[in-house]
């Protein structure tokens, strides 16, 4: 929608071009072609139907009329180089933004911006939970039919920036941004209502999270820009404030006794935190063909939000976590062309994230068996890690505009921590080799073909243990830690068979092969991805151009685990072949049938399917996951008629259709719909079709 509301100045300018030699043009015409121009656009539009998807981020959700108001005010004093700009977008809608800039180019400048972004939850909650949006919820004790409730969050940000050029090629920049995010979003609490058992039922309650966040970012940089040396140093700060530290929930079901989720109150909400960074970044050109860069930064992030009162907190833990994470970063690179045909690049990066949060015993009962027979450490768990990245690349020019490139990338992670319910390894390493052949500067066909092979490995997996010290499964190598071999091929071709036609083809395929824990064949197995696309642009004339594109994206991932059927010897291996298959295409036509008329039309269609291909031996009829399909079709049309050079009218039309069979919350089979223990259900219209028609006028001046 928003795209249609924007008034493209460049297009308007094109509409005003007079094809006459310069010497025959008057001052006004030259001014029109060479000086900044201001434009306002105003009008109204009508949305044909209620919807949840089309209006998710722009507020165009409810059938009815909406205002269209965009403004571009651009003034420049040519003698002083002073600019005054006001850019306003979607001022008649909920996703409005407006920016004011005043600057003397090459001397000073400041800007103020307001930006509003709504996000409507695409599912409607039918709920009897009261107090939504606050930190005090009332949840029914028995299943209760409620009323439709629309969850929503909205961000409103104000930003200010100031810059000043100083003598000696220095420039000072200051920035500040305050964002308020308010509303509520889906959240919940739940638990199994009994001892561990595959037949233990659960209790689940709908407890929307109140969102009353303030985030602030601010900083200052001092830049030096010389011919060979450029340096930037500065400070960046960020602060997060949450007006609610805990969610207090009254009511809820007490079925399950000690296991009932109603025991779970208060629930912590995100704590206030802040981070402060000092950084220095520089680049130096040693010779016209050799340049080095360096960045160093040090960040201190702290979290000392006061703990909220609880009944079971442990003596001696203090009034807050005292969280502190210090991160040091050094990154440097060197690029050189020692021979006219040879280019070299070397890059190294080191990051040390040191979590210095003090460790306390937060749960003195942790060493005793809990309801589920588990024991814990009772300690908080700061995590630190160090990463090293390095890269070397060389390229050599060959005849006929070919270039051959070879590169090696290396990444190393070093982590603290111990295994718990998942596997853990202290270090991982990944090395990648890349070879590429590229052709540029040719008139008809240019392109690239590349091959990358990467190999990830690491230290041994630490042994997970139960409370009694027995090994705890040790079957799964987590996807981000597992050994992995990856091969990737990428091909891109730009082809201009005839002058008005250009064609672009891109193909990439990758294959992943994951390693497993010793003696296990569970966890992620193999993966692959394929992306194909073809784009074409045909220029009929200066006035008419057509575009078309097609994309096919496929990802596959096989993984395996064991069914949850204690005692363990009854567990059975099951597998899934996860597939995500997407087909999308688009077509557009833009033209100018007369000097006074511009038209444009655009069609996009996406069809995306998730397939699960689940294979289970026992209870195969229960363990099923139907494919999920999404379809999105969007047709847009605009027509603009210039009544005079500087004013005219515009018509916009949008058709948007969203369709799905998603079963996450509700499906075609009511018995399978998710119903919270308190009676809450979430629903969505599975086929949403809207029409939007906008009619507006524009006026331009200089």
């Amino acid at each position, binding site marked *: 929608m928003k795209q249609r509301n924007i008034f493209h100045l460049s297009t308007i300018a094109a509409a005003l071009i007079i094809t006459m030699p310069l010497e025959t043009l008057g001052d006004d015409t030259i001014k029109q072609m060479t000086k900044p121009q201001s434009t306002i656009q105003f009008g109204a539009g009508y949305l044909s139907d209620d919807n949840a998807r089309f209006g998710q981020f722009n507020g165009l959700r409810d059938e009815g009329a909406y205002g269209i108001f965009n403004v571009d005010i651009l003034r420049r004093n040519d003698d002083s180089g002073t600019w005054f700009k006001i850019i306003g977008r979607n001022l008649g809608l909920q996703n409005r933004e407006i920016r004011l800039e005043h600057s003397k180019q090459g001397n000073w400048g400041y800007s103020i911006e307001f930006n509003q972004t709504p996000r409507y939850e695409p599912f409607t909650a039918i709920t009897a939970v009261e107090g939504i949006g606050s930190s005090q919820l009332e949840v029914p004790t028995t299943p209760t039919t409620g009323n439709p409730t629309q969850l929503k969050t909205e961000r409103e940000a104000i930003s200010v920036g100031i810059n000043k050029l100083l003598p000696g090629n220095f420039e000072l920049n200051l920035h500040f941004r305050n964002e308020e995010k308010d509303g509520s979003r889906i959240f919940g609490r739940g638990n199994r209502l009994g001892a561990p058992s595959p037949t233990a039922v659960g209790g689940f309650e709908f407890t929307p999270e109140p969102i009353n966040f303030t985030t602030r970012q601010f900083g200052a940089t001092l830049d030096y820009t010389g011919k060979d040396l450029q340096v*930037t140093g500065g400070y960046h700060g960020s602060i997060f404030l949450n007006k609610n530290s805990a969610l207090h929930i009254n009511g809820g079901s007490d079925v399950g006794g000690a296991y009932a989720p109603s025991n779970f109150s208060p*629930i912590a909400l995100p704590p206030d935190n802040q981070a402060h960074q000092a950084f220095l970044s520089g*680049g130096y050109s040693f010779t016209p063909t050799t340049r080095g860069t360096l960045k160093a930064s040090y960040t201190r*992030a702290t979290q000392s939000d006061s703990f909220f009162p609880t009944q079971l907190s442990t003596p001696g833990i203090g009034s807050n976590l005292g969280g502190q994470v210090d991160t040091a970063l050094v990154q440097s690179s060197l690029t050189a062309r020692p021979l006219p045909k040879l280019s070299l690049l070397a890059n190294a990066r080191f990051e040390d994230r040191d979590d210095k949060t003090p460790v306390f015993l937060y749960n003195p009962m942790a060493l005793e068996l809990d309801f589920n027979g588990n024991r814990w450490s009772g300690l908080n768990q700061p995590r630190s890690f160090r990463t090293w990245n390095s890269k070397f690349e060389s390229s050599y020019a060959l005849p006929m505009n070919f270039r051959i490139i070879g590169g090696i990338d290396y990444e190393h992670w070093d982590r603290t921590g111990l295994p718990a319910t998942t596997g853990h390894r202290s270090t991982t390493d990944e090395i990648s080799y890349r070879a590429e052949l590229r052709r540029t500067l040719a008139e008809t066909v240019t392109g690239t073909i590349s091959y990358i092979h990467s190999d990830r490995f690491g230290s041994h997996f630490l042994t997970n243990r139960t409370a009694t010290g027995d090994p705890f499964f040790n079957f799964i190598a987590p996807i981000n830690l597992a050994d992995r071999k990856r091969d990737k091929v990428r091909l891109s071709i730009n082809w201009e068979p005839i002058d008005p036609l250009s064609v672009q083809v891109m193909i990439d395929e990758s294959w992943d092969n994951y390693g497993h824990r010793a003696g296990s064949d569970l966890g992620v197995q193999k993966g692959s991805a394929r992306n194909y696309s073809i784009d074409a642009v045909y220029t009929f004339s200066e006035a008419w151009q057509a575009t078309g594109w097609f994309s096919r994206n496929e990802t596959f991932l096989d993984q395996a685990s064991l069914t949850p059927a204690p005692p363990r010897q009854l567990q059975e291996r099951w597998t899934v072949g996860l597939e995500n298959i997407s087909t999308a295409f688009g077509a557009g036509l833009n033209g100018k049938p007369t000097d006074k008329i511009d038209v444009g039309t655009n069609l996009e269609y996406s069809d995306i399917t998730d397939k699960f291909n689940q294979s*289970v031996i026992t209870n195969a009829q229960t363990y099923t996951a139907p494919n999920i399909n999404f379809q999105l079709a969007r047709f847009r049309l605009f027509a603009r008629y210039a009544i005079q050079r500087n004013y005219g009218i515009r018509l916009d039309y949008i058709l948007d259709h969203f369709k799905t069979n998603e079963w996450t919350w509700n499906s075609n089979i009511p018995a399978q719909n998710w119903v919270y223990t308190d009676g809450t259900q979430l629903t969505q219209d599975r086929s949403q079709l809207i029409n939007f028609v906008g009619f507006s006028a524009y006026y331009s001046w200089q």
Partner: protein
Amino acid sequence: MSRQIKKGLLHLLPMLVLALALGISPNSEAKSASEDADDESERGIVLRKDRECTDCHDESSEYPILAIGKTKHGTTADSRTPDSCKSCHGESNDHLDGETTMPMPSITFGKNSKNPIDERNQICLNCHQGGKRMHWLSSTHANRDTACTACHQIHAAQDKVRDRIAQAEVCFACHKEQRAQINRPSRHPIREGKVVCSDCHNPHGSAGPSKMIRDSVNETCFSCHMEKRGPFIYNHPPVQENCAICHNPHGTTAPNLLKVRSPFLCEQCHEPNTHQSSPATLTGYYRRNTLARGCMNCHTQIHGSNNPENIRNEEVFQR
């Protein structure tokens, strides 16, 4: 909406009205300057010395150039701006002397340019090498032979890639996979121009991976999702390591930009202990791992919990 922001808006409205008034009124200063015919003839049409070029390159030319006068490059009061077209296109003597045949200028930037991309980019870097472009030469864009003019329109009144609504279209000229992903049901508001590529990536290179604007993936995500930063009493390790282990920020079919739907996502790491290894099902006891929020129906504090109360939190994130 907070009172402060409402106040801010109220202050902005008069500014808008004032600006409209200022903008519509005649530009007396500019007019007086243009009335000085002698100065104007000396200055050229759009740059300080462009007469040699604008005598031919008007808007009827195959290569119209006058719109550069509307840009910052065409702001001649700023002494840093190019003196003439030759500042970027070279002396171009053959081009200027041509009569029947017209060789190209010394340096061109269009699709049929014969100049190496390094040479073309160096013209821009001569003035634009500092600040946010400090790391350009070591960036993947530079090393994949990306010309500055592949993304930027120097002569256009509005450079498309610097317009938040149009920017993604420029990036999608190469990044086709992301073009498809932004139409998935779980997405950032990229189509609406409220989140754009350059909010997260610095296309000119950075010290972070994938040209992130901050020093790491997580630091970049925290710019807008600071509530996930912690640290918490109970931390979920992959959250601190890299948000992209679980999320694909460009768009997914699973809710909340998750790469894979629950329970399969969680089972890519978690051991097959009782309930946490169930296959997906829409019926029976283990539908709680698949439907609604899936595993997060119970483990609701998946990014970490700061609850000092000492039960059902360590490693289970229920409170």
